């Protein structure tokens, strides 16, 4: 009767559609009478718009609508998850290369593209800031007009969007007593999510409301933002979020959706905008960073203090980047017991594409600096680099960040396993090196997810969930939880997602939260049904409810065991019917907490890399890449491996080849797939090993923790350490391109 669904590597729910081409992504959805939208931009990062002449574009046959800021409600609404700073369309000025100044809707894509070229924008190009140093220079102009900053914002007259201060202990006192202090500056490049599915949006008038299909990780947040800018009640704004062709954080928050919504309402017809890959590069990216770090240690290798100043370069609008800055830096001192910590973390505005969430959410940027610096300490003290980590690593239940969730795993097991798998300490051939690094990322600090589960009359079941499945496999995991609890086989499970008019509220799909928070909601919805089955069994068999238990598909009566499904069927009369269960998963805010809440769990990872450096060219060959994560419990090991393998390789892309290049106009020069390289099947480590530690110590169903980001967190420092081990020189900028490695070898620094 019990189905051992948990811990089983079921094929992906929705997998058949993905291998047959039947999966309907946004761009595959056909909407009748739809107009095609093309955006108009200017070829520089910062400009004053003098005039926009749309007459030639509007006169082109087949063009139905051309909009500029003048055609929208005044003042033009602004929106954003953090600050309402981004206008629906550029108003009077352009603040980054790619910001739309006008948009055309036409009967065909070709006409829309032709019309967009006919929009005449007269503009005055202004100098742009695209680096941390330029933005923070004393004479730098302001990226954001103080008028759009919060009225009481003390930083409004600067290019700092925010400054966060975290820490504990007395850093200066600890510095006076440290035996060694290592101080360096590290840079993390500007990289982009590069989902293979282009971003897109279809918006259509729907009676006195609107329906919007979009590539969006947070359909309920998009619904809320649209309702606000359109002045509509939530009930009249329906967001449909088809499964995503990759998100990686880049599809969390709206950018062009409000514009599309206004255009649909103005045209009185559906409109459709599917971005080009180049436009996606201009719409979303990861925060780049410049991190200055001072690490103090005692002779025995124990950490005395960490003193960190992080400047994260965000874009012209804050999007969710300020949260990346605060959350990514909150754990900048790492998963270690450090007696004194001082962290100053700034979000620095610039005339660059808006930085938003990306896998790892600020942790890779700080882990790069901290772990490289810790190796400097180990090497200077003559302590093994593995040993210094084990010495300082937080042990189970240590409150390594005072006042926050204690260490929720036996992390030393993770580190020791990674060391074993990389043959730590074994001799290496010439030009080869090993590195090891650790990092922890805080899971969600607040969260709210509802689920509805319906056990149908024939013993099949449907899970309703507002989570977005973008490849992480949430559908499969939710089906497994319900299969386990209701005793319904996987082939009789359906999972419905991605429609705010159909599924109940889910705050968001981010921070590797869904298995834990939505998983708990699904589990609780099944428990609700189990309770109903208990009442039914009591009525059917004349037994007191207290004498009956229902668990994992089985109804236990004093004298017999029955399946949940058979009791459920017996309990339904001639009219048929079904059982509807409701469940919630919740993580409450903590008033006064620097992140508004404690960590629901930590994603802890240890990455160890063995690399070979070509002494002639600086080219790297990753001989072995080991990634070990603490998952608590892997509900679907095959999917967990997919997440870990994928995050590891994505991390190698960041560490070895990816970065935006700007020209003198503040334009991104390497937009698109030709000039911006990501890993292919030819760039893989010769051996990639991902393993998981499972002690059932997570807060999610069956002891699970979130898993999707861990394996990207400390790839860069593990690789950087391996390269240093091979060539004897530390490189503190990324990516570790052949040229950079070759120069380091040549210059010896």
């Amino acid at each position, binding site marked *: 009767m019990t189905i051992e669904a948990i811990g089983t*590597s079921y*094929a*992906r729910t*929705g*997998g*058949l*559609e*993905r*291998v*047959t*081409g*039947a*999966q*309907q*992504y946004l*761009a*595959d959805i*056909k909407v009748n009478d739809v107009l095609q939208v093309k955006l108009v931009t200017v070829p520089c990062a910062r400009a004053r718009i003098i005039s926009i002449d749309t007459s030639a574009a509007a006169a082109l046959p087949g063009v139905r609508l051309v909009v500029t800021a003048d055609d929208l409600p005044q003042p033009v609404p602004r929106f954003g998850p953090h600050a309402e700073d981004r206008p629906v369309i550029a108003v009077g000025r352009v603040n980054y290369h790619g910001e739309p100044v006008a948009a055309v809707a036409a009967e065909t894509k*070709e*006409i829309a593209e032709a019309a967009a070229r006919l929009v005449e924008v007269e503009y005055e190009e202004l100098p742009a800031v695209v680096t941390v140093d330029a933005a923070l220079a004393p004479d730098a102009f302001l990226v954001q007009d103080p008028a759009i900053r919060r009225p009481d914002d003390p930083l409004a007259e600067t290019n700092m969007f925010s400054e966060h201060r975290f820490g504990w202990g007395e850093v200066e006192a600890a510095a006076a007593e440290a035996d060694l202090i290592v101080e360096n500056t590290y840079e993390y490049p500007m990289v982009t*999510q*590069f*989902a*293979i*599915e*282009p971003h897109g949006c279809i918006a259509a008038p729907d009676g006195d409301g609107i329906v919007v299909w979009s590539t969006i990780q947070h359909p309920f947040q998009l619904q809320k933002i649209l309702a606000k800018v359109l002045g509509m009640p939530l009930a009249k704004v329906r967001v449909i979020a088809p*499964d*995503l*062709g*990759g*998100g*990686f954080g880049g599809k969390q928050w709206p950018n062009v959706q409000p514009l599309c919504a206004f255009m649909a309402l103005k045209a009185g017809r559906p409109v459709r905008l599917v971005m*080009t*890959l180049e436009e996606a590069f201009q719409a979303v990216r990861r925060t780049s960073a410049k991190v200055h770090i001072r690490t103090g240690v005692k002779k025995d290798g124990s950490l005395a203090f960490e003193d960190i100043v992080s400047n994260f370069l965000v874009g012209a609008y804050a999007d969710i980047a300020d949260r990346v800055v605060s959350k990514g830096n909150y754990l900048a001192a790492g998963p270690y017991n450090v007696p004194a910590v001082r962290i100053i973390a700034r979000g620095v505005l610039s005339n660059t594409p808006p930085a938003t969430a990306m896998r790892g959410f600020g942790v890779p940027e700080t882990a790069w600096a901290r772990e490289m610096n810790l190796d400097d300490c180990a090497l200077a003290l003559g302590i093994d680099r593995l040993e210094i980590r084990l010495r300082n690593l937080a042990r189970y239940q240590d409150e390594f960040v005072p006042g926050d969730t204690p260490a929720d795993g036996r992390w030393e097991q993770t580190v020791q396993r990674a060391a074993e798998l990389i043959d730590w300490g074994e001799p290496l051939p010439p030009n080869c090196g090993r590195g090891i690094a650790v990092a922890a990322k805080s899971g969600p600090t607040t969260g709210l997810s509802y689920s509805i589960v319906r056990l149908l009359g024939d013993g099949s079941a449907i899970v309703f969930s507002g989570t977005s499945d*973008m*490849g*992480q*496999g949430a559908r499969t995991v939710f089906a497994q939880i319900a299969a386990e609890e209701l005793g319904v086989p996987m082939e009789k499970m359906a999972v419905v997602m991605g429609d705010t008019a159909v599924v109940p509220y889910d705050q968001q799909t981010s921070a590797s939260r869904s298995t834990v928070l939505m998983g708990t909601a699904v589990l609780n919805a099944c428990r609700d049904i189990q309770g109903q089955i208990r009442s039914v069994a009591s009525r059917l068999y004349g037994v007191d409810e207290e004498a009956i238990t229902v668990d994992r598909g089985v109804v236990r009566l004093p004298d017999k065991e029955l399946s949940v499904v058979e009791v459920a069927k017996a309990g339904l009369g001639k009219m048929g019917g079904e059982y509807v269960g409701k469940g919630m998963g919740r993580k409450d805010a903590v008033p006064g907490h620097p992140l508004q809440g404690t960590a629901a769990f930590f994603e802890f990872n240890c990455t160890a890399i063995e690399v070979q450096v070509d002494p002639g060219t600086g080219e790297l060959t990753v001989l072995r890449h080991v990634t070990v994560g603490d998952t608590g419990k892997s509900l679907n090991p*095959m*999917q967990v*491996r*997919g*997440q870990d*393998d*994928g*995050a*590891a*390789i*994505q991390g190698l*892309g960041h560490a070895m080849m990816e970065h935006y290049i700007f020209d003198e106009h503040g334009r991104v020069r390497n937009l*698109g*797939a*030709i000039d911006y390289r*990501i*890993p*292919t*099947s*030819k760039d*893989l480590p010769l051996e*990639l090993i991902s393993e998981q530690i499972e002690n059932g110590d997570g807060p999610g169903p069956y002891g699970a923790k979130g898993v999707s980001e861990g394996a990207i967190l400390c790839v860069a420092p593990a690789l950087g350490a391996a390269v240093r081990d091979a060539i004897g020189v530390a490189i503190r900028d990324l990516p570790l391109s052949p040229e950079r490695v070759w120069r380091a070898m040549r210059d010896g620094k």
Partner: protein
Amino acid sequence: MSDRFPLDLTVNGQRHQVDVPVYHTLLDFLRDDLGLTGTKECCVVGECGACTVIVDGRTVNSCLMLAVEADGCEVITVEGLAVDGKPNPLQRAFLDHGSAQCGFCIPGQLMSAQGLLMENPHPTAEDVHEALAGNLCRCAGYEQITEAVLAAAEEVAP
């Protein structure tokens, strides 16, 4: 933009005789004119491989080929892989090995893999990496994709 061409070709075993706009790529034709949306569009410059199809036995990026160039050709898309409505061994292997994560690149990966197995029924892992090097997967499920291709080859031609 009104120039049209009378195209005559076979897609997944079915003959089509249609007038297509001369500027339509094979990708546009498949997706917009035939409604076969299994073939995906991403970079449109022949770098990502999401639009890979098989034309007369050879894999091509359908974004780089005009529809008119496929006149008289036999085209196979991901929709044409299934046999009697059931996934073929390659598709089955992709399912069983967890190769599809978000799934967006998978039609292209499958077509490149199908093209490889047509030419080389006993590939090594290195052969698979080489043949699929033009198919980007940002989920980076390359390991599980390679395992699936090797398993399918073993099943079809042991």
